[in-house]
């Protein structure tokens, strides 16, 4: 029995002269949510396709629930649920029929399929639409159907490619709690998204990819310890800057935006000390928070220091 839900080691895949994935290595464990973060064209979807047993890697090895997708695709498919970033659905079939057929395609019995369908329709909030053909669904509803379809065979490893795009805020909150619940049930969830603030609240760990390669642990930790902006708001905004001067913060680290005063600090402990000195100085602080989330901070910082990204090439764009 494998300890990791997903193991990726030195994986590369090119399309002709385009190296979509050059060197990716990471692991994702059961019972946790792993975020896959990277700019457009960094190879996230190509990686997802390889994990989903649809695309064979040129080099390196992949294990999904302990199985190799190249040599044992059926075992991988039995253990893995994939929600693609392309929203395709059988337009003439009802929501219920879609899930039932998917269950049958996974080799479930008729009874298993029926009970599982009822369960998933309720879980993803599609009960009212269960008898509607899928062509009438909105983008967000299709997204939920796609997630339900990935869960039909109760997989232990879940690959979610941009699951939150097109969802309204309420649906995003629901998705977040659903994803957390799936992880709490012991599943390994790999999730890619551009909405980094949201991943911040969902993910236990993150894999950063850029230009087809995963960022090394050292680069990530150095990015994490670099300067980070915090936003300060107070009942009396004019009191903030003198207090910062008193705390001997250099002026070039102080900035303003329409929401408040921005201060660059090096670490969380520096931030805590700064807050302490502001409060002691009698500044009526109402907000003291990082401007961007952890993931976004690391992501932006990695992009800043990384090698220039590969030029976007049309062939990789058509690959998802």
């Amino acid at each position, binding site marked *: 029995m494998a300890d990791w839900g997903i193991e990726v080691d030195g994986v590369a895949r090119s*399309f*002709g002269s385009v190296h979509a994935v050059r060197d990716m290595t990471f692991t994702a464990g059961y019972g946790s949510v792993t975020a896959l973060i990277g700019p457009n064209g960094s190879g996230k*979807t190509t990686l997802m*396709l*390889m994990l*989903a*047993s*649809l*695309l*064979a890697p040129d080099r390196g090895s992949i294990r999904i629930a302990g199985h190799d*997708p*190249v040599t044992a*695709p*059926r075992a991988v*498919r*039995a253990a*893995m649920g*994939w929600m*693609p*970033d*392309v*929203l*395709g*659905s*059988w*337009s*003439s*079939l009802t929501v219920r*029929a879609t899930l039932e*057929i*998917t269950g*049958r*395609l*996974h*080799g479930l019995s008729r009874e298993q399929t029926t009970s599982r369908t009822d369960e998933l329709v309720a879980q993803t909030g599609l009960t009212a639409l269960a008898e509607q053909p899928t062509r009438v669904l909105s983008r967000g509803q299709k997204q939920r159907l796609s997630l339900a*379809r990935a869960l039909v*065979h109760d997989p232990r490893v879940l690959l979610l490619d941009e699951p939150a795009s097109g969802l309204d805020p309420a649906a995003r909150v629901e998705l977040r709690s659903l994803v957390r619940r799936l992880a709490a049930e012991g599943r390994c969830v790999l999730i890619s998204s551009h909405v980094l603030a949201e991943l911040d609240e969902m993910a236990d760990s993150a894999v950063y990819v850029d230009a087809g390669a995963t960022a090394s642990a050292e680069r990530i930790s150095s990015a994490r310890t670099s300067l980070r902006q915090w936003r300060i708001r107070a009942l009396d905004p004019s009191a903030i800057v003198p207090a910062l001067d008193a705390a001997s913060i250099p002026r070039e680290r102080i900035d303003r935006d329409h929401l408040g005063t921005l201060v660059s600090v090096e670490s969380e402990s520096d931030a805590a000390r700064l807050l302490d000195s502001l409060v002691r100085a009698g500044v009526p602080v109402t907000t003291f928070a990082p401007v961007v989330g952890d993931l976004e901070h690391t992501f932006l910082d990695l992009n800043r220091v990384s090698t220039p990204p590969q030029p976007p090439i*049309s*062939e990789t764009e*058509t*690959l*998802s």
Partner: protein
Amino acid sequence: MTFFSGIGTVLRLELLQRVRTRAWYILLGVFFAVVGVVTVLLVLALSAFGDAVGGGVLSTIIYFVLLLGTLVTPALSGNAVNGDRADGTLATTQVTQIGTWQLILGKFLAAWISALAFLATAVPFILVSILVGGVGPDVAFVSILVLVFELGVVSAVGVGLSGILTRPLFSIVVTYLVVAALSIGTLIVFGLAGVATQSTVVSQSRNQDFGSYDSTTGEMTEVTCSPWQTSTYTTPRFDPYWGVLVANPYVLLADATPTRFDEGGNPTDLFGAVKAATRGAQIPPDLEPTYDDCAPEYGTSYPTARETIEDTVPGWFVGALIHLLLAGGLLVGAWSATRTPARRLARGSRIA
């Protein structure tokens, strides 16, 4: 899940998703009406020639179903695989326990069954033709069997090409071109090649010089023969190319079906007429004919259709084999291009 139950699930999905639409039922309704009108007109028209007109009616209906089936099937099957890819539903099927062969064969069967819906719609009229009389049970059985086979070939070509080619529109067009190449292209090749191959005919002939009335003797002069005359001309040769026609579905259907003849040795249905005409192409022309007017028994007797058919060889099984290889080869090609995990991708193709 067994191999066959997997095919069954794909088949069900295809029939639910692709085929069972309102437009499809309207098309079948129109087809029903058209075949109905044709049947009534045929029964009325052929009744002028005799009682047993059922054979003529049946063969026309079968040809009609073949025509419409081969016209509609490419549109239904020619985007079976790449259309799903464009809709983003192919990959969702491929990440299940369904294997590539189950997927391809399920789609092929769905296309075949939907083509056979046209045959099923025509069944009432086939029964009418049998009730009218003059239809041999062997004729009905064999011709329907060959029709079913041919519709399967077109379905397989469509599904195969939809797996091999990336763009749905392109694969539909190529499927139509394959159907056209078999149905019309074979005739064109046959005709052009035959005309392009000319043979020289050296013809010998002599005529009878009829005697004339001699007024002085009051008797007829003796009947004499003119000297032999040689004339040279060229004639097209079709006999080396009759093999091209065996791949034509209409010829194949006629060639495989047993023929009934009337007392004069003429076929009683359309299949027989087509069969006699195409079998006649096997017989080489006489390159050194002699026409002797003075011979005691002159006058050339042409062979009847019955004699032509009985003296020549059938070619339908060769045609059927060619069709089988074409259909099978394209399905294997589709399987190979759709296998996952994919190692090679066509340029610009999407696998999701």
